[in-house]
């Protein structure tokens, strides 16, 4: 269980997060959605331990404040949004960075790359890959870091900031399948998402943010309503349901060819 209570984050004199409550269960995929500037990445960064905050965050029952980086690294892996590498590392070397010395096994690197569809690309230089491939290499690194979703009875966590932002639809679905499988084996996943339909299909719980607050956190069917999404995003949003009761949003442009 990952619980954040009364979280206030300030940058200079501006308050970015206004005392919010967020919770994520192990074995579930929890998505954070909301308009740009709502504080989604700040919330994920705070959960990752990147910045000072007021309030209390517990990961598997332990306060993350004052936890040592190495101890945190064994429990959760973090995928930031954009991450250029400084030196010409190979793909295998990048993935290996997430591994602890004791578990730096070649087969974990190969299997992690296989899962993100980059099998056999170990020797390629990271900097020569496309943006989407680089994002998947980092995903493989993050997966390798928390390779077993549950260790010693405690769930491990993936904290992902827009994991599919540079990916085509095929790889978007692949990443969502990876994330579902991780949660299915008992791990916890928290991800910031922009794509509402992908979120509705993949998440067990959705936190909708607006202006530094969580305005709703519930299962997707309860959060994806015309009223809630319309108010948060500041535009008319028409939510439909598939025959299997999955919510989806079909954008309508006023005066466009479809309307």
């Amino acid at each position, binding site marked *: 269980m990952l619980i954040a209570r009364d979280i206030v984050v300030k940058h200079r004199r501006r308050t970015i997060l206004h005392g919010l409550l967020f919770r994520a269960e192990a074995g579930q995929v929890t998505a954070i959605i909301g308009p740009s500037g709502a504080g989604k990445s700040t919330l994920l*960064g705070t959960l*990752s*331990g*990147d910045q000072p905050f007021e309030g209390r965050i517990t990961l598997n029952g332990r306060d993350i404040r004052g936890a*040592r*980086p*190495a*101890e*945190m*690294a*064994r429990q959760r*892996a*973090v995928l*930031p949004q954009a*991450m250029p*590498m*400084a*030196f*010409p*590392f*190979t*793909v*295998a*070397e990048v993935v*290996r*960075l*997430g591994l*602890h*010395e004791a578990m730096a096994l*070649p087969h974990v*690197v190969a299997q992690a790359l296989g899962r993100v569809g980059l099998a*056999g690309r*170990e*020797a*390629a230089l990271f*900097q020569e890959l496309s943006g989407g491939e680089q994002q998947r290499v980092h995903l493989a690194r993050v997966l390798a*870091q928390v390779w077993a979703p549950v260790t010693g009875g405690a769930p491990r966590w993936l904290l992902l900031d827009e994991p599919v932002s540079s990916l085509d639809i095929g790889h978007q679905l692949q990443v969502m399948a990876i994330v579902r499988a991780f949660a299915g084996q008992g791990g916890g996943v928290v991800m910031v998402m922009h794509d509402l339909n992908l979120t509705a299909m993949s998440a067990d719980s959705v936190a909708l943010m607006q202006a530094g607050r969580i305005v709703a956190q519930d299962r997707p069917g309860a959060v994806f309503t015309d009223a809630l999404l319309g108010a948060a995003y500041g535009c008319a949003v028409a939510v439909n349901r598939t025959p299997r009761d999955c919510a989806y949003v079909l954008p309508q442009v006023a005066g466009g060819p479809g309307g």
Partner: protein
Amino acid sequence: MVAVSQTWARAPGDRSAAARRLTAVLALMLALAALAGLAAGASGTSLWSALADLAAGRELSLRDRVVLWDIRLPRVMMGCLVGAALAVSGAVLQGLFRNPLVDPGIVGVSAGASLGAVVAIVLGGSVAVIPAQWLVPVAAFAGAWAATLTLYRIATRAGRTSVATMLLAGIALTALAMALTGLLVYMADDAQLRDFTFWNMGSLSGASWSKLAVAAPLIGLPLLAAPALARGLNGLALGEAAAGHIGIEVQRLKAAAVLIVAAATGAAVAVSGGIGFVGIVVPHLLRLVSGPDHRYLLPNAALLGAALLVLADLASRTVIAPAELPIGIITAVIGGPFFLYVLLRQRGLVDL
């Protein structure tokens, strides 16, 4: 070849086997360079005839003993220490700043040392506490430390060090130190001016056992500590936040890196003056050959830096023998164009 391809088949994209082979090659290269440094020089002394004398049980002539034991050997060893210190400092700073063009000269360490040296040369006559031949190295070391620690204090706020602030403040501190150096040079008389100019161009000619005894621990300890930074510097290539996410104590890493560089570079510049470009050229060459993994880059940089500086020193004392060329001129003549080549090759690749 079979063994090699099997290694690669087991862990593709892993260049550690190649990097370890490179370590062996570089160690051999350093041994040969040191031997050459001992064997050649301005005097007619021959290492081989001296060895033949020893083998035949004859006493060495006083001249041979002085040249080999008291002049060439400490000089070769000082060259090893200084070259290793500059190359490892360069590699550590580049890892810390995540930029392959950073050099101890850029973050103000060398400028601080220069200021210390010129203060000692111009105003030193009035200080009688420290023996004259020690005054310049001690002052240069103090200057390098003062510059590095000032820089670190400026860039650290609330326990966090901003690498970008450090880089920019380093440029400002360098300018300030150079202005003060210029002021003192302006005040200096002709003899002092000449002393400073030669110190500034760098030389290993003053190497002696007593100097070595002071410099060896100051340079050796940070060099021995440097490999402990390797995993942290690798992680830092991901950026500071991501390095923390994979379990690295980033703030401790930065503090340790700054201390190591200040001690190693400060001592190296103090005993040998301004020797440029070793810190940029060596790590870059090694990254081209065996990749940027600091676990291998740092020891390999020490070996290659030592070998290159011993060879450069050999050139400096044989090219226009019996006179000597300042070694800083030789490293700059080779290093300057190389630096430009690196810059041009990376233009467009690295946006900073």
